[in-house]
């Protein structure tokens, strides 16, 4: 493990005063290796190493900690600070409040839409699920089935002509029937697909969402920077949901997404069942990335 490597590298530092540059360089090399193996973006790693080096250089080794532990703590704390930060609750202003779920193909948007509805219902809200993916085979049926599993009402998108029409109609019905939160599932798409990114902008204009959640796979590699940037520049992301966190992917892509969008990671998906949605804890992911 990384902390064990730091302990070995820095075991002779104690008693010599502050950590020296040579000690730090070797330990930083290990950090760089660990972060790249954990799928943190190449450039993000560079910037992170620079920050950690500054924090570690000249720092007095505390009497109560071995230098290896000291260094581990610096790296862990810095990573936690970068991953976390601002309030990661859901912004639910609006009558009804609208949450849009967007992202690449297969990332887990449809499942997460149902999970969020379940989460909100258990908090006493009255959510309405809106399937706005008319492209993927049986996508509307998939969300309908999930909605019925958790006994949340679902807009009937069958027979509607296009996603904008669905969204307009769903907003109208929600106001009529008094649902207080709309959860809109959109089709997976590539950030480089101009036409589909335009469609997303159109949906945003119709829905005026208080949350646009970028649903991303926690096993995403270096490309996370590109996709997060692409979606953020097109429609502005308000939060990130990392799915399939129940696997063994180290999850370094999360750091790329957090730093690229500047937005908080709000939830993690921890399984296929609809109660498998948890609030994100930065220090937990930091530990996993550094493992």
């Amino acid at each position, binding site marked *: 493990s990384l902390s064990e490597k730091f302990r070995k590298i820095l075991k002779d530092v104690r008693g010599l005063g502050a950590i020296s540059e040579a000690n730090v360089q070797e330990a930083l090399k290990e950090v760089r290796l660990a972060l790249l193996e954990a799928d943190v*973006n*190449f450039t993000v790693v560079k910037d992170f190493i620079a920050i950690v080096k500054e924090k570690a250089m000249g720092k007095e080794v505390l009497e109560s900690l071995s230098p290896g532990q000291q260094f581990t703590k610096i790296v862990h704390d810095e990573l936690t600070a970068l991953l976390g930060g601002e309030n990661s609750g859901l912004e639910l202003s609006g009558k009804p409040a609208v949450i849009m779920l967007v992202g690449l*193909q*297969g990332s887990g948007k449809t499942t997460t839409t149902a999970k969020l509805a379940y989460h909100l219902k258990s908090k006493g809200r009255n959510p309405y699920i809106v399937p706005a993916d008319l492209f993927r*085979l049986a996508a509307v049926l998939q969300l309908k*089935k999930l909605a019925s599993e958790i006994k949340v009402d679902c807009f009937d998108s069958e027979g509607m002509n296009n996603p904008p029409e669905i969204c307009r109609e769903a907003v109208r019905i929600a106001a009529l029937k008094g649902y207080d939160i709309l959860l809109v599932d959109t089709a997976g798409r590539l950030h*480089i697909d101009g036409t589909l990114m335009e469609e997303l902008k159109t949906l945003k204009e119709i829905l005026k969402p208080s949350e646009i959640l970028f649903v991303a796979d926690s096993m*995403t590699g270096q490309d996370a920077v590109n996709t997060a940037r692409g979606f953020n520049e097109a429609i502005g992301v308000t939060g990130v949901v990392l799915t399939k966190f129940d696997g063994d992917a180290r999850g370094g892509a999360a750091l790329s997404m957090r730093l690229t969008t500047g937005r908080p990671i709000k939830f993690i998906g921890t399984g296929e069942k609809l109660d498998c949605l948890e609030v994100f804890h930065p220090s937990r992911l930091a530990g996993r990335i550094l493992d």
Partner: protein
Amino acid sequence: SAVTGASREEFLEKLEESLITSDVGIKASTEIVDSLRTKLVGWGNGEKFREYLRDAIYDILKEVEKPLEVDKSPFVIMVLGVNGVGKTTTIGKLASRYSAEGRSVMLAAGDTFRAAAIEQLEGWGKRAGCPVVRQEQGGDPGAVVFDAMKAARARGADVVILDTAGRLHTKVNLIEELKKVNRVASRELPGAPHEKLLVLDASTGQNAINQARIFNEAVGVTGIALTKLDGTARGGIIIPIARELKIPIRFVGVGEGIDDLREFNARDFVEALV
């Protein structure tokens, strides 16, 4: 123009960076570029370096450029992989491809877990014009495969493609279920599944290596399909997988349409990567 000492090192570092950012991984990227370092003493041209890098990667990938030979009847393909990578869509594309070759294709809806998975595959069956053997959601996938093997023999199907539920390789019980489905197929039809096709998403990072290792250990993977190469991800993860596991890369997915499937070509892949 000549690339001298300092700038040559810079250039090699840039090449290494381009490999890492394509998900080749730090270990493989460093090893590949290091082997170039020793070979390239004295060569002085940046573009020449890139060419040598391409050749080095091509040498790795040409070993796994082995198209799938459908040489038995019925030829059974079991499609597996983690959640959301494109298994069901890839099956639709394969069904269309093999039907166009004049073969009779049959699909088996082996994902009995996920909502609307059966209906999604039935949709692809309609598009490709081939029958889908199915039971009910919540049922035993082994029972579906059993039915499919019997139906294939009875109807004289040329190709049978088994869809399975997405499953994380870390879920021991789901890996056991996959092994069971594999056993059912081989009991009903000796030699089946003739191809165990692992589907990997090109945007996946280093975790793809774990996926390949564990699925291979569980059922023996005989081919890989790399999907979503139409995005900006380069899919470099197949390089460490090729080096370590030597599993043939059969297909690449380049879109969501029924024709968006190509046979893997090592030279094309390398040209797009570096």
